[in-house]
């Protein structure tokens, strides 16, 4: 459901539009990049010795994630939504992790409700990008 400008009233939301108005994100053209995930929630990025990669988070990711992009050049991990909106996790992937991150081809994105209980779990592709800067 797409709301018209006049219907978006976050100051005085009414009726069935209340939740939509509060959850409303501008279009991807207006807001293609979301603030770093780490700014709004607790996040752990983990990789095991077999190259399995995990992103644990305690909060709400704004849009369903389609895939993740690991940039070796920037040492960054970015989530890309189904609408094409991008959101970096906001932490530098430091050297001790890089050897194992290179071996991953997908990533488990795991919600930890209240920081303790597993909630939504998805397994999405992780694209590794390196141009050798």
């Amino acid at each position, binding site marked *: 459901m797409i709301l018209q400008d006049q219907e978006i009233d976050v100051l005085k939301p009414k009726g069935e539009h209340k939740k939509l108005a509060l959850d409303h994100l501008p279009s991807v053209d207006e807001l293609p990049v979301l603030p770093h995930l780490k700014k709004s929630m607790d996040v752990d990025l983990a990789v095991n010795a077999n190259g399995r990669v995990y992103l644990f988070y305690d909060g709400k990711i704004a849009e369903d994630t389609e895939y993740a992009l690991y940039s070796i050049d920037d040492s960054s991990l970015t989530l890309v939504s189904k609408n094409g909106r991008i959101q970096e996790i906001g932490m530098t992937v430091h050297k001790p992790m890089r050897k194992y991150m290179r071996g991953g081809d997908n990533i488990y994105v795991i919600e930890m409700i209240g920081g303790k209980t597993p909630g939504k779990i998805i*397994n999405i592709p992780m694209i590794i990008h390196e141009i050798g800067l």
Partner: protein
Amino acid sequence: MGNPTIRDAIPDATPMIILGGGALTANALISAGQRDASMIVVEPLNGRPSPAQTVAEFTSVPDPNLKLEIAPNTPQMAVGTSGPRMGGPGQ
């Protein structure tokens, strides 16, 4: 096929390197029944890795009954505060 479970995602106790606080990962490992997994937590700001520790060690809290005691104040022997100086000027 439905979404994977936490046990599907973490099927064994393979050691992990973690960027972040580590608590979310530790709780996920506990939920997956992998308390014996070894964790190395990398400090997000400076990239410094911690020593390896198991989930149980990472999540252990200090014993609240443990009390710090102050050692009794014992007199200490003064050493070398009197007597002739050796090797000084004029000798």
